[in-house]
């Protein structure tokens, strides 16, 4: 295989890596004693997880009355968090599936971590539909299992049921996809390991030998799963948006929701990938694999999706006015100028205005700005869901039922707790699995390594 030399293409792997160096760099974090940074981070994460367990236990023990939701605002932080976490998951699938189909080679540096993020985010998201139930112990009612009650089936008209299918399908496919990618890399780790570790990695890599047949099957499976996952990128958040769009509540009952939610999901997902990647590459010293080129590409996606979301916000306002429908009009006036105006400002500022900074290439390649922006976008997207859910519910048709809502400590702790759950999973993941897809990175070394492409190609070729 001869290397396609291009002076225009930015290298995706820097540091003039050899195949062995790649293996060394990426597998070594799983083999060494954890760093102090990791240990501190892990202690924090597990504390968060403990907080999560405590506050969820409290919720189940005391009842949903331990939250401040009320007869008017029946969903608040719970469903806000649910949508936020589901949205975050989307970047992983987009990177691994759609970019794979589009043969975007820059995805290889970040897809593993992004996919892991997807899974952990979906796990976090999946908590909320369960714990927000008044009677979680009867949550199995939501599954269409054969029963002796008639049989009594679930209500297939309900968007909440669609959610159950959408989220569980999404989680299953994401796990399969992620694990499939991990199999050859686990084999690589196994080959370097000894004793019990070797046995474990041998087991989890399904006895991978690296034969041509294995590789061929692996490639085929990856493509098939990518094909399966691609519609999910669009469908999952579309269905989540149906939770709102199919209702009769002004501010929810909106046909723009599916595309707007999907764009928002990708937007927030990429922001979260940035947050994680910037930290991971720094801590695990993976700057050669997750380069500025990667960060630049992802910032472009953030800029594009952020602008789509911005257009959606403005469209909503325009349509509310143009519809001539007073309830819709009031709902949007209320969003902007009602008692929750601050969350609307937060949403607009973080999601629409701040990403415009990425029109500048310098800013796209500035690590600090990128990190800050990724946090902003995460906050903004949380506000967006809060605006849609709480602000809308607080003031609907009958003014006599209007209310105002702020969370209790339990609700706040559950949210912080899911961050702990997510971080714990992620920190364990970077300790036990290659955080960059070794096999795939090796696959693009010849056409993405700095010794082969870019302005400085072949200068120090040996």
């Amino acid at each position: 295989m001869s290397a396609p030399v291009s002076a225009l293409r930015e290298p995706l792997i820097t540091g003039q890596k050899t195949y062995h160096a790649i293996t060394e760099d990426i597998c070594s974090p799983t083999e060494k004693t954890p760093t102090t940074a990791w240990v501190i981070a892990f202690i924090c994460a597990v504390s968060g997880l403990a907080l999560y367990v405590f506050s969820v236990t409290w919720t189940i023990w005391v009842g949903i009355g331990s939250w401040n939701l009320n007869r008017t605002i029946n969903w608040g932080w719970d469903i806000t968090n649910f949508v936020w976490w589901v949205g975050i998951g989307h970047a992983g699938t987009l990177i691994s599936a759609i970019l794979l189909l589009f043969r975007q080679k820059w995805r290889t540096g970040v897809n593993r971590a992004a996919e892991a993020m997807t899974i952990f985010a979906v796990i976090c998201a999946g908590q909320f539909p369960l714990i927000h139930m008044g009677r979680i112990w009867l949550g199995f009612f939501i599954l269409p299992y054969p029963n002796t009650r008639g049989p009594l089936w679930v209500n297939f008209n309900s968007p909440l049921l669609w959610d159950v299918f959408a989220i569980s399908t999404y989680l299953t496919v994401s796990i399969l996809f992620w694990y499939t990618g991990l199999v050859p890399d686990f084999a690589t780790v196994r080959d370097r390991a000894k004793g019990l570790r070797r046995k474990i990695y041998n087991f989890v890599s399904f006895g991978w030998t690296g034969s041509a047949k294995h590789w061929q099957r692996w490639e085929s499976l990856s493509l098939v799963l990518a094909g399966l996952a691609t519609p999910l990128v669009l469908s999952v958040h579309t269905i989540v948006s149906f939770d709102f769009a199919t209702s009769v509540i002004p501010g929810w009952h909106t046909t723009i929701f599916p595309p707007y939610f999907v764009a928002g999901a990708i937007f927030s997902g990429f922001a979260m990938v940035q947050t994680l990647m910037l930290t991971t590459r720094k801590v695990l010293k993976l700057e050669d694999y997750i380069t500025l080129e990667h960060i630049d590409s992802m910032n472009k996606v953030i800029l594009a999706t952020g602008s789509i979301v911005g257009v959606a916000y403005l469209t909503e306002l325009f349509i509310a006015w143009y519809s001539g429908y007073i309830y819709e009009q009031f709902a949007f006036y209320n969003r902007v100028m009602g008692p929750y105006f601050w969350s609307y400002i937060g949403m607009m500022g973080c999601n629409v205005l701040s990403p415009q900074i990425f029109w500048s290439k310098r800013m796209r390649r500035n690590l600090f700005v990128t990190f800050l922006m990724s946090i902003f976008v995460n906050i903004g997207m949380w506000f967006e869901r809060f605006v849609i859910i709480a602000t809308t519910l607080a003031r609907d048709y009958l003014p006599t039922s209007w209310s105002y809502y702020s969370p209790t400590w339990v609700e706040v702790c559950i949210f912080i707790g899911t961050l702990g759950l997510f971080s714990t999973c992620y920190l364990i993941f970077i300790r036990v699995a290659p955080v960059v897809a070794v096999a795939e990175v090796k696959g693009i070394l010849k056409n993405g390594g700095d010794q082969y492409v870019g302005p400085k190609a072949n200068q120090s070729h040996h």
Partner: protein
Amino acid sequence: MKNKQGDVWIGDAQLANDPVYWQESNQEFHSLSMTDFLGEEEVSGGSSSRRDFLKYLGFGLGAATVAASCEIPVRKAIPYVVKPDAIVPGVATYYASSFVQGGDYCSILVKTREGRPIKIEGNSLSSVTRGGTSARVQAAVLSLYDTSRIAGPFRIRKGVIDKPASRNGKGPGWAVIDEEIRSSLKPGSRIRILAPTIQSPTTLQAITDFTVAFPQTKLLMYDAVSAAALIQANEACFGQAVVPDYHFEKAACIVSFEADFLGTWISPIEYAAKYVTNRRIHDVKKPSMSRHIQVESHISLTGSNADNRIQVKPSELGAAILALYNAVAGLSGLPAQNGPSLPAAKARKIKALATELFQHKGESLVVSGSNNLGEQTLVNAINVLLGNYGQTLDFQHASLQRKGLDSAVNGLIDEMARGEVDALFLMEGANPAWDIPRAAEFVRAAAKVPLKVSFATVPNESTALCDFVTPTNHFLESWGDAEPKRGHFSLMQPAISPLFDTRQAEVSLLTWAGSNKIPAGAEQPAMDYLMANWETQVFPKQARFAGFRAFWEHCLHDGIFENPVSGNAPVFAFAGDVSKAASQVRKPEASGLEISFFETVNMGNGQYANNPWLAELADPVARTSWGNYLAVPVTWNGGNRFSSLNNLNPREIYGEADIVDLSINGRSKPVTAVRQFGLLKDTVALALGYGRSVTGYMGKALGNEVGVNVYPWLSLDEQGNTRYYAAQAQVSEPVAKEDLFACVQYHHAMGVTGKDPETGETLNVDEKTSMALGSGYQGGIVDRSIIYKASLNELPELVHHIEEKRTEAAKLNSKTLYPIDEYTDHQFSQGHWWAMHVDLNACIGCGACSVACMAENNVPVVGKREVGRHHEMSWLRIDRYFFGKYENPNTVYQPMMCQHCDNAPCENVCPVAATPHSSEGLNQMTYNRCIGTRYCANNCPYKVRRFNWLDYTKADLFAVNEPQVNGESLPFGADNLTRMVLNPDVTVRSRGVIEKCSFCVQRIQEGKLTAKKEGRALQDNDVRTACQTACPTGAIVFGDRNNAQGDLTRKLDNPLNYIVLEEIGVRSSVNYTAKVINREESLDA
């Protein structure tokens, strides 16, 4: 060998007295530990050890399972050997009886199930209350099961009831207590019996009989919310010391000076029904309705229903009455009287009012709730001048529901202080240590009375001062009667045996008097005495029945005996001294903040403090519950800013409220503020009856310290009558934040307009100020299809407007993918198709339906903290909207319950199909299936679904999340006594499920079965929902839309009908009739 002769032995080991043998044989169970046992098996080398292990495992699990489940609860259901005729398990029995609490009266039917009273319905045979009820009547059944009830006769030492702690503990017993009381009484003892109004002729007779033994006995009646001046004035003017019979139904023009006759004044159930007859629109082509003008300070329930309110400061009311007298006198050609005068603008309005009244001479009615003798005399004079006596009010069937005189209790205090009272008996409902202005003096004077006995059923502030408490029965356990109006008798019969060791006060009195009228050993002495009294007093008044037995049984069945006088009412000559009256009226205060004290529909004078149904019922006007809140006036400063007195509660839309120090006459107390439309600048208002300090003895009771006690702020006027206002009040700047602001609805309006002081533009006020930034969208609130209202003269426009909006809605709704019409026709044309109609002109907002719904449907009480968090569980609420001018708005009350949409948005979003639609158009709720996602509640446009946030019914296995209602020691509802009130036909919901109005599906089912058993088609009367039966004005009608002859169908055919939020296409089953007011614009000028 040690064996006694004759013993039986089973082996030589026994005979040999082998110690091992004795050890083993003394053990009932052969003990061998599992490990030893298994070990032995292993030692024996048997290959069956695994099998045995599994056997023991199986046995162990089985034994554990049996052991865990073997504690079967003891069920005490014992079948009747001989079944009483009246009790069929599962079938309700109704007893006609009377609700009597002091001056409050209602003829009722008590619904009992398996011997337990569970619900009170109105008795439609009564011509006084006409089948209507009030919130207090509906809630009375809960008082029967009050956990604070006194369980038997007890001595009281130092304010503590001398009894064992447990409720069923043994006290000294009736014989001992009777003897102790009797020994303290001598024939010459100066005994004073203090009571609220006694409506019962039999109780009065018992007191008379008691007086035979103790001739120095005096009965003194007073009412905590007094009508003394009214009675005194009628005595002075006409020689009739009673309350007249008011005919609101005959009046074309009603003027009320602070009389809350729809809510609390004298006989509100009766007056509301009469009032509403002239307020409904029967024919939009030829509309007519009475005009009601309220002159008052605080916006009362009645004032909120008025067409016009003329606002005066509390101290100006006397001047206003005098001004009206002078104006009417002027029109009648009589001289004016000198006295205090009104400011010019208000005087002009009163003058216009006089003209209005004069046009309706003989068909007008002026009433006043004032407790000032001069003012009441002038009101009588006005009615005389207008020729209303004999027309709209007369004395023929005068009301006997208020008899109390303030002078009675005040005179008693003086007597007691002088040591001239030997014994004081406090009848149930009398609480002079708390509910009078001179309560503190009473407490001091009580120390000088050697014997004090209380008949209270529940401890109160006065009971704590007594030496003995000899509790009387709850009225649902009592035999008794009432004469609420002349010639209208009402019987009271027990619906249950006394729950505790209590005895009716009449019997106690007669026992102590040693009267021979109660034979010794009588099983039901109270009944015998009542029957004897009726035989001598009531039976002779009629001619229909020859024998007393038949008469008695007839009356007991009907609950009433009415013997109205026929012919024209005699007109008494007016003998009042008008000029003296003019000098007696209250003097207006030149300046300063004034406060009015008013009675609320739920708490009365404080005697209902222990009733959480009433405490939780939101005040109709202020929409607050669990306490009294200082109503402060709201002013609009143009733009987006409201301000209020001292800028209180600026963040009320966020559910935040301020606590201020209210100071009157140097007494200062912290109170929570609530903003209130319709109050004049410089006036505030606070409700009576809150802030009770002693309501129970078992730890902290749930009625304790709810709100603020205002009685110490009251004073007496020159005639010795209680004054229900105070001048020179001071309201401080906020001193603290209220963290439990239990307000279910903030000051939202529906089209309250005002002129912007800067631009002069007429703007929608509430809507502008509901925004946090900028101004809102004009019409965003007011154009909602929730409330339609108009003035009588704009009726054609309103009909047109409704028609237009409904056509537009129908057009919008026709754009659907689903053939809903075909479906509806097919689905609902077959059997029943339930629907409801609510007439907003008949609804006065009294809240009887709300409490009836709580009683019927086991709706939990959640308490102040939870109401403050908007967790109230009411299935039926009454939304209040203001409209018109913001300084002086009109009000519309809208009962809002599940609308049972035929295209219900809640149904299709439930993932587990827990809320399906019935083939009869009911939106059903399956609690067992509900997992509590709450999506249905979010998607309900009417926000009528309620979620059990916590374990409100105290039904969970673990008591960890049982919220207290008011910090009481035993959470409300956790006691089995309280649970006796539950309706067995309605599931008690657990935590975590949604609930809502079911259109009383249990009543529908019962009605269907009744019709089926009788082999006939169901009629609308077979099924009446709880709210419908409770309503005193008949505003709610329920029935079958498919029944062309039904009551409902007739109601549906009204061009003023509309459906709330019709354009969103949910197909609600509840029709409302638009609100029409008869406002006279000239009175606004």
